[in-house]
């Protein structure tokens, strides 16, 4: 069963050798592809409901403001695809917002040092999460839950409930500003540029050996280990990427909105975005760009609810139904794909995924294991 796993940009689609159109259609029928269709459908529904949202200026601003959650979702993707969770993301965002507010308060010469400090802090938190998970063998759900409690508690204890204020305007420009006077769209927000650059890097990284080891690790850690992957280091890097992405999200958010109370619940938003993007909790399957698309789909859904004047108290319910349906649908598609609706991908054998000597790999059961609760037998 490990053979169906393919990292991001090498989707082992049956349609690999067919025409572009056919490949597109086949791609859209996978969970990672369907999310783009979902984005499109939501976008069209919004524009039909209120044409104002279709104006280029409105669209680009929307794309810009959704950047932080998309970035966080891509970061969370690395952790999830390696078979783990990162619940500390929201606490990391808040940590960074407090650092920015307290240390880059009114001195613009502090912007660069503070940014560096924030990235270092982000990397360190990720390193701790990763090492405790891999070396001390504590489930990441618990590690990052503990990190979340500890970080939130420490922040509030030291800094009070709120940062002293917003960081200087130069700092906030990163999240609030953009390239002005652009034809048609008026402005290109910096966050949009950041998310595009990071998405490109992410897509690239998933084609590299690191990305492939990551997916292999999530799919079957034992096989990955036997294949020579340093599982602890691969996962630890995933946690660092996750925390760093939360850091970047924090940098943008403190610019976009400033203030306090930013970041609470961000981990749930990010995880939701990742699964709406067709990435499977439990690891081993899903595309990084689909995670970002999942974030866009969710935010579009919220806009649609606003446009349709759904009472704000009902939005939780709608969101709840949508994520269940989205994930159920993708579970079905993965399942059908694996049941032999398609022949096994024809790509070259992957030594990392070779299940030899792995007592737990049961190639006789190519169905997703348990009812929903286990995405792979290696949970």
């Amino acid at each position, binding site marked *: 069963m490990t053979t169906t796993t393919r990292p991001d940009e090498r989707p082992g689609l049956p349609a690999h050798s067919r025409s572009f159109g056919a490949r597109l259609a086949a791609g859209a029928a996978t969970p990672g592809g369907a999310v783009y269709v979902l984005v499109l459908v939501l976008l069209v529904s919004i524009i039909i409901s209120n044409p104002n949202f279709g104006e280029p200026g409105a669209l680009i601003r929307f794309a810009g403001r959704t950047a932080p959650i998309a970035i966080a979702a891509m970061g969370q993707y690395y952790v999830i695809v390696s078979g783990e969770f990162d619940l500390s993301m929201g606490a990391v965002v808040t940590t960074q917002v407090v650092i920015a507010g307290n240390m880059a308060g009114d001195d613009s010469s502090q912007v660069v040092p503070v940014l560096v400090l924030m990235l270092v802090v982000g990397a360190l938190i990720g390193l701790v999460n990763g090492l405790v998970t891999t070396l001390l063998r504590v489930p990441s759900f618990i590690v990052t839950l503990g990190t979340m409690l500890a970080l939130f508690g420490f922040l509030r204890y030291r800094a009070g409930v709120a940062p002293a204020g917003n960081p200087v305007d130069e700092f906030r420009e990163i999240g609030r500003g953009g390239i002005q006077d652009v034809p048609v769209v008026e402005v290109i927000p910096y966050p949009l540029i950041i998310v595009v650059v990071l998405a490109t890097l992410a897509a690239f990284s998933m084609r590299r050996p690191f990305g492939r080891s990551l997916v292999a690790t999530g799919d079957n850690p034992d096989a990955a280990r036997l294949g020579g992957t340093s599982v602890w280091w691969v996962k630890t890097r995933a946690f660092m990427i996750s925390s760093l992405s939360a850091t970047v999200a924090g940098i943008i958010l403190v610019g976009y*909105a400033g*203030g306090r109370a*930013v970041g609470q619940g961000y981990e749930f938003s990010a995880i939701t975005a990742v699964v709406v993007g067709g990435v499977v909790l439990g690891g081993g399957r899903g595309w990084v760009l689909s995670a970002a698309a999942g974030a866009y789909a969710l935010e579009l859904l919220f806009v649609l609810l606003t*446009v349709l004047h759904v009472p704000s108290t009902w939005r939780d319910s709608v969101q709840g139904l949508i994520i269940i349906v989205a994930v159920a649908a993708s579970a079905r598609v993965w399942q059908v794909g694996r*049941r032999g609706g398609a022949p096994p991908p024809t790509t070259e054998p992957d030594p990392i995924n070779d299940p030899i000597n792995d007592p737990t790999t049961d190639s006789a059961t190519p169905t997703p294991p348990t009812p929903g609760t286990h995405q792979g037998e290696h949970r």
Partner: protein
Amino acid sequence: MKRHATRRIFAAAAALTLLAACGSDSDDSSSDDSDQWYVQADFDEQNAQRDATFEGDPATPWLQYIDGEMTDTAAFASPGAKKVCFANASVSNPWRQTGFLTMQQQLEVLVGQGAISEMETRDAQDDDNTQIADIDYFISEGNCDAFIISPNSTAAITPAVERACETGKPVVVFDRGVETDCATTFIHPIGGYAWGIDTAEFLVDNLEEGDKVIALRILPGVDVLETRWAAAEKILDENGIEHEDHFTGADPTEIKKIISDALVQGDVDGVWMDAGDGAVAAIEAFEDAGVDYPVMTGEDEMSFLRKWEDTGLTGLAPVYSNFQWRTPLLAVQMIFAGQPVPAEWVLPQTPITEDERAEYLAANEGLPDGHYAKFGGEDLPGFPQVWIDREVG
């Protein structure tokens, strides 16, 4: 296998339908639930209290009260320093934090005067169940001479407050109320309706009929917040101001998105908030969209006052008097001195207008954005450093 899969889908679809059905059943009952929070008598009472005469020195508003029934405390009169037990709902937002800092400095003064020996604090972290346990713990283990309770919610904490009253010791309740009058005194500013009336009247005065107001609310189900909107909504409706309300969780990101989306859909002429958290984000959304500032009501939080001054928008800072956090300990001192205290101690609650803004900005210069202008602690020891460092507990 195929049939099996189909059956599964049916089963699961049935489950989801079940959930959805739970939802749709309620539609009929839900339509008028906002009325749950609107009590005409309370509205009228608080409306009248806005113009009432307060007894006492306006320089110490935390000791002012509206003339009314007094509790005779002669039976409590006794010499010596007393131990106070404080069951606090939480310090999880800047308003409560500012208040708690003020309370601790007030405590320092009273300890110095020999009126109070110590204050033991238990913090319920926003949980009714924890607060009930905290109060019961105080009753059985605390060796308390008096109880101060800042209830996490009104109805749920009532039985525990009654148990505290049954000890025969003085009980001081402040901020949110409880559904019993057994407490020696219940200290609170005028209330949520007054907030709603002040803010909605300001919007009505500065807007035209048919203008649109976005109401940014923190979360549903909290009475002190619900009554603010209930009163405001009523007045806005009566005056033909269009409005739509959103729950934001006080998250500035959420606030900015809501305003941005509203601006894409059409003009927004006014913004109403049930607390000042995130007011700046709301204002910035107008800036980023390149449209005129709205008429706006925030709160006396420094971040809003500063942004208000910078932008010069038409605004009002309603106040839920933070200085009420000084009153409970002073009340305990009075009670053990045998001085009568108001049974319901209604403190003044006056919004900060544009004319008064400069004065409050100057008085609170250098204090952080999460500080509240009407905190009333300028004469306490440690000012201003304690409110800058913000170390709670």
